[in-house]
């Protein structure tokens, strides 16, 4: 093939821009991610390119001239990391395309399959596919020192014999084995050893093969059955990999577990695992509430002070001061949406911590712990996935139930998802908890998540023992990523992705809700005095409607129209509870609303009055109700799509009934204890 192109592979001219003389051989490094392929590339070429662990550093095809007195000049390609040549990502697709071009002359002259001694089988699988692609190749083994520490030694001769290709052990970080690799590559390019790994055993597409291991190699072609049975071919491939790995790997008895394994023994242990999970989540909420509190207070001062004043002055300047427009802008949009935006630092801290946990691999363990809890209460394994997603957002969790094959599993999960506490509810927890519980706010918020899990467990058991008795448990395999040190870039990206979702909600549906709430609170109720935009909020349609429902919540200690209206608006989205409160109290007492922290003071007064002097039990009851009742209209829409209107309405009834049934004793018992 090298004779066919001028400087580089003709078909790859767009990606291989190395200035090499015509006929320069092309050698490609191919390997699983994180095996030291890029380090080897840098070691051989001295190009000093960045080396990293994650797609991004080897997404592009690396290329450089590799010059050595024993080798001459070679174009060396560093192809993107690939688990196999069955592409499951664009990176792998590129690697597959570059290695297995339809015309053999367009393929590299030689492929060096780089594999880690720690995970030899995975590398052998890739090697086998390269072999099947009829590309001359050899195997370079990295990380043998790491493997040795883990009690794994390799019999290189046995491996070369079993795999039927030359094998070289290299240490890219220290340069060990580089000369061996140079010599083997040089020999291979001259039509030597590597040519023998064509798919027809020792028949090399370019001729000149050296079949010195032919008798001992596991025959590639012979193991393949005739016909086009994909499963049978895959079985043959797997057995080839297993045979080669078995021949080469020697496990010592003094093997040491990795720190990831040791950590896993704790974090996924049946009893200790859930305790660790609870402790981690407590720390998350504690940090969230304490770190973000000063920033939130500062933003609150900004919104209630300079921003509101500036808007008022501007409206005065254009002649709209004192009109309904001022009410909409200052007491509606700025008070409502502005108050919600003060939660941005809090959400940012929370999301950063979650991203940190996710990137480290811990959240995957938390999912395993959650799964175990689900199974302990008789819920099917696959149902836990949407439930875990529900702690982020209920809408995708409900949509995610469609992957469940059984209709009853789907129904059960759809009915349970609303009890998982989504991040939208977190904002309300934090506002209420910081207002009423001070330094213990983090613990209260953490407690709400525990209550959420209890709701899922109890309601799940209830449904399984009544409506949904028979349910299959389909198999599900969990593949845990190894623990790793979080990367700042990935954590920042994850945080921003989550924060952007919060901001879009705040700037979309919440703005619409604020306008509607403002319009309702500016409209006089029938039989009351005043006109549109000039009516005390207590006499508005908004207050009258909430006031009609409020007595229902009196036994739970929060039967005020202010709290009831917030819960009613919360049907739209849980963040709207905050904007609704902020609007209500800003409209009712515009002077007080200009004082930072005034919303918290107004809430204290409201809950104290509605509970007859027992605000703490009333607040706890309110939080429990908020957690258990219908999450938002988007979730309802998703539920209707997945299980139909009848079950969606049934779900609403179940949620409201359970929420009220639990909130009332929380208040009543709390009041007795207080």
């Amino acid at each position, binding site marked *: 093939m090298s004779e066919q192109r001028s400087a580089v592979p003709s078909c790859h001219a767009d990606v291989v821009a190395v200035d090499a003389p015509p006929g320069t051989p092309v050698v490609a490094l191919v390997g699983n991610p994180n095996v030291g392929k890029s380090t080897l590339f840098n070691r051989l070429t001295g190009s000093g390119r960045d080396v990293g662990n994650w797609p991004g550093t080897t997404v592009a095809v690396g290329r450089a001239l590799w010059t050595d007195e024993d080798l001459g000049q070679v174009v060396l390609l560093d192809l993107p990391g690939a688990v196999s040549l069955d592409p499951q990502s664009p990176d792998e697709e590129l690697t597959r395309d570059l290695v297995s071009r339809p015309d053999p002359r367009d393929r590299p002259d030689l492929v060096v399959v780089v594999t880690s001694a720690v995970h030899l089988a995975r590398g052998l699988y890739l090697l086998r596919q390269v072999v099947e692609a009829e590309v001359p190749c050899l195997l370079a083994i990295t990380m043998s020192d790491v493997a040795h520490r883990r009690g794994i030694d390799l019999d290189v001769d046995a491996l070369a014999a079993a795999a039927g290709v030359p094998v070289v052990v290299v240490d890219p970080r220290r340069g060990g084995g580089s000369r061996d690799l140079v010599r083997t590559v040089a020999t291979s390019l001259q039509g030597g050893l590597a040519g023998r790994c064509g798919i027809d055993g020792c028949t090399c597409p370019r001729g000149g093969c050296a079949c010195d291991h032919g008798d001992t190699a596991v025959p590639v072609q012979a193991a393949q059955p005739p016909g086009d049975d994909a499963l049978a071919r895959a079985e043959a491939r797997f057995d080839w990999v297993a045979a080669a790995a078995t021949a080469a790997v020697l496990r010592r008895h003094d093997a040491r577990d990795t720190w990831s394994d040791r950590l896993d023994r704790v974090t996924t242990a049946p009893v200790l695992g859930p305790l660790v999970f609870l402790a981690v989540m407590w720390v998350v909420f504690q940090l969230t509430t304490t770190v973000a509190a000063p920033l939130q207070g500062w933003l609150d001062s900004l919104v209630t002070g300079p921003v509101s004043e500036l808007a008022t002055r501007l409206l005065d300047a254009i002649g709209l001061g004192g009109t309904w427009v001022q009410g909409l802008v200052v007491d509606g949009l700025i008070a409502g949406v502005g108050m919600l935006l003060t939660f941005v630092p809090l959400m940012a801290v929370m999301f950063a911590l979650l991203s940190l946990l996710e990137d480290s691999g811990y959240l*995957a363990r938390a999912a395993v712990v959650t799964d175990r809890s689900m199974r302990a209460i008789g819920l099917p394994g696959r149902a836990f*996935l949407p439930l875990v*997603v529900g702690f982020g957002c209920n*809408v995708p969790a409900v*949509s995610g139930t469609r992957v469940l094959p059984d209709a009853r599993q789907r129904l059960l999960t759809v009915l349970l998802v609303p009890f998982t506490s989504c991040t939208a509810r977190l904002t309300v927890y934090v506002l209420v908890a910081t207002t009423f519980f001070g330094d213990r706010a983090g613990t209260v918020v953490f407690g709400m998540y525990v209550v959420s899990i209890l709701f899922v467990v109890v309601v799940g058991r209830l449904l399984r023992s009544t409506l949904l008795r028979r349910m299959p448990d*389909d*198999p599900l395999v969990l*593949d845990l990523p190894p623990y790793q040190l979080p990367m700042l870039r990935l954590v920042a990206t994850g945080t921003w*992705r989550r924060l952007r979702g919060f901001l879009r909600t705040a700037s979309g549906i919440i703005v619409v809700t604020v306008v509607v709430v403002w319009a309702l609170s500016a409209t006089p109720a029938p039989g009351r005095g005043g006109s549109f935009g000039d009516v005390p909020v207590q006499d508005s349609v908004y207050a009258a409607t909430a006031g009609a429902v409020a007595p229902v919540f009196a036994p739970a200690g929060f039967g005020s129209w202010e709290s009831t209206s917030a819960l009613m608006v919360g049907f739209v989205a849980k963040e709207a509870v905050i904007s609704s409160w902020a609007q209500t109290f800003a409209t009712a007492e515009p002077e007080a609303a200009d004082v930072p922290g005034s919303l918290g003071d107004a809430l204290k007064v409201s809950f104290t009055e509605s509970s007859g002097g027992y605000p703490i039990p009333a607040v706890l009851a309110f939080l429990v109700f908020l957690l258990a009742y219908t999450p938002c209209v988007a979730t309802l829409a998703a539920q209707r799509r997945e299980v139909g209107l009848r079950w969606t309405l049934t779900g609403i009834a179940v949620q409201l009934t359970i929420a009220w049934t639990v909130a009332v004793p929380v208040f009543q018992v709390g009041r007795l204890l207080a």
Partner: protein
Amino acid sequence: MSGLQRVLDAVAESGGTTTVEGLAERTGLDADLVRVALHQLVALGRLGRDGMSLACPEDGCGGCASSASTCGTAGRGSLVTLTLRPPAARG
């Protein structure tokens, strides 16, 4: 019986949630070999593979009502799940 078939049978017989290490114990294969087998089974379409993220949808709650299992983008630390799929019908 082929190792690949053993892994497939072990998944089917697990009757619930299992892990790669659990399958390794059940089949007597090395965990790495089990991963190779699972990868092949995904390529064959006998297993479905999903990365799971807890992130909120990028366009806010409610913005991904038509998505599959999750709206968030699975990262390197995300849990990967594999579920059985029926074999493709032969033409």
